[in-house]
Each structure stands twice: as C-alpha cells, then as structure tokens.
C-alpha cells in the first residue's frame, strides 16, 4: 500500500482516484484474509510420521523392566504421553482407565503404555496409585521419545500398528469412545 501511493504525491494528472482504488482493492483482499482468519486455530493432529515406521524406542518402565517398542510387534500399541500436573491429562485419565479395563477382556488386546513426559517417577506413581491404571509406565527422562514422535504438548495419544507403523496421532484429551472408534477403523483397514 505505502509504496504505491508515493505516486500520487508526485504525479501531475488525476492519479489519486486510480491509486486509491488500487490500494482499496488490496486492502479489501487483506481484510478478507483477516476476516477468514480462524481465532485460536487448533493444532492439527497430523504428523509426518503417520504411515511411517515408528521411531526406535528403548527405555525402562517405572517397574525397572526394559521397554523396546519394536519388541511389541504383533500387537496394536497405544502410547499416551502424560504429565501428572497437566490438567487435560488428569481429565482424560478416567477414560483411559475405562478403555484399559475393557480392552483387557478382548481376545487380542491393544497394549496401552503411558510415556512419562517431564515428570518425576514419584509423582507419577502417586498419581496412578490414587487414580487407578495398572498398565506400564515408561520413562522418557531425557525427552528423546517425545521428540522422536514430535510430541508438542501433552496429552497426546499415538497408535502403532502390529507391523510397527504409526497410524494415529490424537493431540489433546482423548475419550474411550474416540479410542474405540479409531482403533476399530484402523484394525479394519490394516488388519489386526
């Protein structure tokens, strides 16, 4: 806008209406962009990892056992990135507990793991002791698992298929219904 109107200051003929119209059109386009801008656009759930082999994960669980993601091939694996002080993590926890309870009755159950994001072992133990959930919690002390998956903000839930490919990323709180639905769709598509 600004550089165009220099013209009007220096020209001799009736340039002002022409230039003002051009500036006006540019400003209208600009206003359209601003009007269509979505306040607080949500972070998308897509990830470059979808459809790719899952990053190598090798760590230990809270109980001191080794955890290697590639050894879990053959089962659907659900990774829930978690921090005991994050409010949506606390909010979604009962849903995960309900999901895990039901899944344990299934014939070929999906395996659920909590990945501890930037939290202390004690705080996590205390949280699970109070709120339930007897699945394995795996350590990510240096944050490398979170970075390997590209986890931006906990909670995030990821699904890895039995062949070790990343199939789903859910950023933000999850529900039992959403997990069931997505897992069902994925199983139908990629085989159980």
């Amino acid at each position, binding site marked *: 806008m600004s550089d165009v109107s220099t013209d009007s200051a220096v020209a001799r003929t009736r340039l002002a209406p022409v230039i003002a119209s051009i500036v006006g059109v540019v400003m209208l386009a600009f206003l359209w962009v601003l009007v269509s801008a979505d306040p607080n656009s949500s972070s998308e759930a897509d990830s470059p990892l979808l459809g790719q082999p899952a990053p190598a994960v090798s760590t230990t669980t809270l109980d001191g056992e080794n955890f290697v993601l590639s050894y879990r091939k053959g089962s659907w694996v659900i990774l829930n990135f978690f921090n005991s002080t994050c409010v949506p993590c606390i909010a979604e926890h009962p849903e995960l507990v309900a999901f895990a309870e039901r899944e344990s009755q299934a014939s070929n159950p999906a395996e659920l793991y909590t990945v501890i994001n930037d939290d202390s072992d004690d705080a996590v133990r205390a949280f699970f002791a109070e709120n339930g959930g007897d699945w394995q919690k795996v350590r990510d002390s240096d944050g490398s698992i*979170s970075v390997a998956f590209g986890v931006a903000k906990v909670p995030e839930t990821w699904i890895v298929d039995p062949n070790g490919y990343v199939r789903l990323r859910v950023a933000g709180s999850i529900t039992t219904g959403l997990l069931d639905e997505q897992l069902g769709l994925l199983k139908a598509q990629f085989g159980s």
Partner: protein
Amino acid sequence: MSNAASVKNKWTWLLLTLVAIALLVFGGTRDTGPKTQSDRIDAITKVIACPTCQGESVYVSRASAAESIRAEVARQVASGQKTDDEIVAFMEARFGSRVLLVPRSTGLDALVWVLPVFALVCALGTLVFAFRRWSVSGSSTVSDADIEMVEQALRDAE
C-alpha cells in the same frame, strides 16, 4: 576551493575506500576458529520453532517441548554424526513443517521472500520515474525567492 586541494581530497577518498574494503574483506572472511558445540546448538535451535508456542524459536522458548528439543539437538550435536541442516531436517520429519521458523522458498511460501523485493523494485521504480518527470518539467528559471530559499536551506543545513 583550489584545484590542488580537491585532487588531494579525491586521492584521500580513494585511499579511504580501499582501506575500508580491505578491512571488510579481511574482517569478514577471517577464520574465527572452530565453532563450539554450544554455538552449533544455538544456531540450530534459532531456526527451529517451539511447537507449543507460536512463533518463538526453541532457542528463545523455555517451554517443556522446547527443552526436550534442545536436549535432543544437543545429543545429536554431541554425537557429531549429523550436519546442522540434517538435524533441522530430522526435526521437520518428526514435528512437521510447523517447526520450521524460516519459510520455505517454494510454492506459496516463496511469496514472503519475493514480495519485499518486488515492493523495493516498485518503490525505486516510482522514484526513478518521478525524478525523470521532474527533470523534464522542472522549472529552469531561478527566481529570487528560490535563491533565498536555497540560502536559508543551506544555512539550516549547517
């Protein structure tokens, strides 16, 4: 002003320009020793955006995701197997293009690089065009009022 003085003046200017260019070339290209790992980490984290805080670089941000990325960059720098660009590419492969702080120069994103140059060319073009017209139509007779104005201006300029 005498002719001799102005010639001398010109030689000094030439000398000054040459010295300035020499200093710039010397200072601009000299080797400052190997980069420390910390320098590399800073350089890399300055072009990676923190995924949870819009627009801030990992270098700037103190958010937890940024701390994790910084730690990962530090590990990859320490292992010494990847170049800076490869580490940035790794992050893009994991987090997607939303961690790139520098817009790409392809597709629609290239506009953000092209438009400023276009604006500069337009503005300079307008200026050149304006001076052309002024030099064609500018008054060639100098009135007393003009001279007074010039004189005042010169005084003011001092």
